[in-house]
């Protein structure tokens, strides 16, 4: 079986588990919505501020919810040592990485659509430059998912993984936060041309971490 077919098998399995357990819909999405709601309460006196900082608040909410999604993606592998079953099946490490990262990316994209709608409604944001926003979201999501999957497997075998994962991951994701926030700001201000360097940064980050993940995930999956 080729790498792409193995990756498709893993992504299908992970998405089926998420759709059956409904953890993403019943816990991760509400968590993200609560975060943006809390920002709205905190900055309510001046709704102008909310609209101006909306891109940053949106990506912070996505990032925090993504930590839950990434943790969940590896928790299912630890239950009943399902991870040993995957190892025994002889699937390629790179394929497992691509499959798990793709499943996380799909979940994050759904989350971003819902949180985006919440931000528009709660923060009174006027949406411009929809094309650059979509492109930014795609590049940032791939970067988030790839990095999260790589660091997720690093933390997976550790006793303190729940607290260690954010500590490892958040500093590494700083460029994604910066690039996605700036690109969204430029897009929403009607200056999509200014957003291209940030989108390029996000694209490079996504390609880099996807390549590192394909190469490094297998040995980490075996040893952790």
């Amino acid at each position, binding site marked *: 079986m080729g790498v792409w077919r193995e990756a498709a098998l893993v992504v299908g*399995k992970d998405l089926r588990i998420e759709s*059956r357990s409904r953890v993403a819909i019943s816990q991760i999405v509400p968590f993200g919505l609560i975060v943006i709601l809390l920002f709205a309460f905190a900055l309510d006196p001046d709704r102008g501020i909310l609209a101006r900082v909306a891109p940053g608040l949106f990506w912070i909410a996505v990032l925090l919810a993504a930590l839950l999604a990434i943790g969940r993606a590896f928790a*299912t592998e630890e239950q009943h040592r*399902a991870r*040993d*079953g995957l190892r*025994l099946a*002889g*699937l390629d490490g790179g394929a497992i990485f691509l499959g798990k990262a793709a499943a996380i990316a799909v979940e994050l994209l759904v989350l971003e659509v819902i949180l985006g709608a919440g931000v528009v409604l709660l923060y009174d944001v006027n949406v411009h430059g929809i094309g650059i926003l979509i492109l930014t979201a795609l590049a940032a999501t791939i970067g988030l998912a790839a990095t999260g999957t790589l660091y997720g497997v690093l933390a997976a075998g550790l006793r303190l993984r729940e607290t260690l994962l954010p500590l490892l991951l958040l500093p590494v994701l700083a460029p994604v936060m910066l690039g996605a926030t700036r690109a969204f700001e430029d897009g929403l201000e009607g200056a999509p041309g200014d957003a291209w360097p940030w989108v390029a940064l996000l694209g490079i980050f996504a390609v880099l971490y996807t390549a590192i993940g394909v190469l490094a995930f297998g040995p980490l999956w075996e040893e952790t």
Partner: protein
Amino acid sequence: MPLVVRLRSAVCLLGRFPALAGVDLDVEPGEVVLLAGPNGAGKTTLLRLIAGLVPLYSGEAAVFGVDLAVDRRGARRGLALVGHETFCYDDLTVRENLRFMARAGGGQAADADPVIARLGLGAVADLTHAKLSAGQRRRLALGAALVRDPRLLLLDEPHAGLDADGREVLHEIVAAAPAEGRTVLMASHELELARELATREVRVDSGRATAVSPRGALT
């Protein structure tokens, strides 16, 4: 005929503790080898070493002639392990778990159907793993191993949690293994039951293995 398992002075560490302290073991094709020994003797670690799930610290270990120190993934290709856990997913049904395992092992989803029938899991095939009883989970674990049609079947306490019907199914599977081209290595505390099936017994104690009966003595 090449050995299925060949261990020479195999040492395996769990942390700094030598769980296996120099094991020598040869297993030939078609054998049903019983690993007996007290709790903490190293039986589970020995099976996990052969399955390539824990690393070899020193010595030599090969499965189907593939060196575990060099290519653990390659050595695993023809084997399956039934461990203490099921290696399955709570939110997938019995059928979905087995179909996934079959496809992940390079087979077809349809390979799951005869395994479901053989293990008597038809009535619960559409229940999720989370809703299964302990005995049904043990059968599913056995199914997850068999669905990949392994040439080497590693069984860790296979009788645990099985009712009388389940034990009958297990015995049928182990008894049929040599005729199906399978070699079996099982660790068990249910010695009377396991000896009915085994062709040879090896005692594991303090991380070392000692032959109790010569090859074929228990048949």
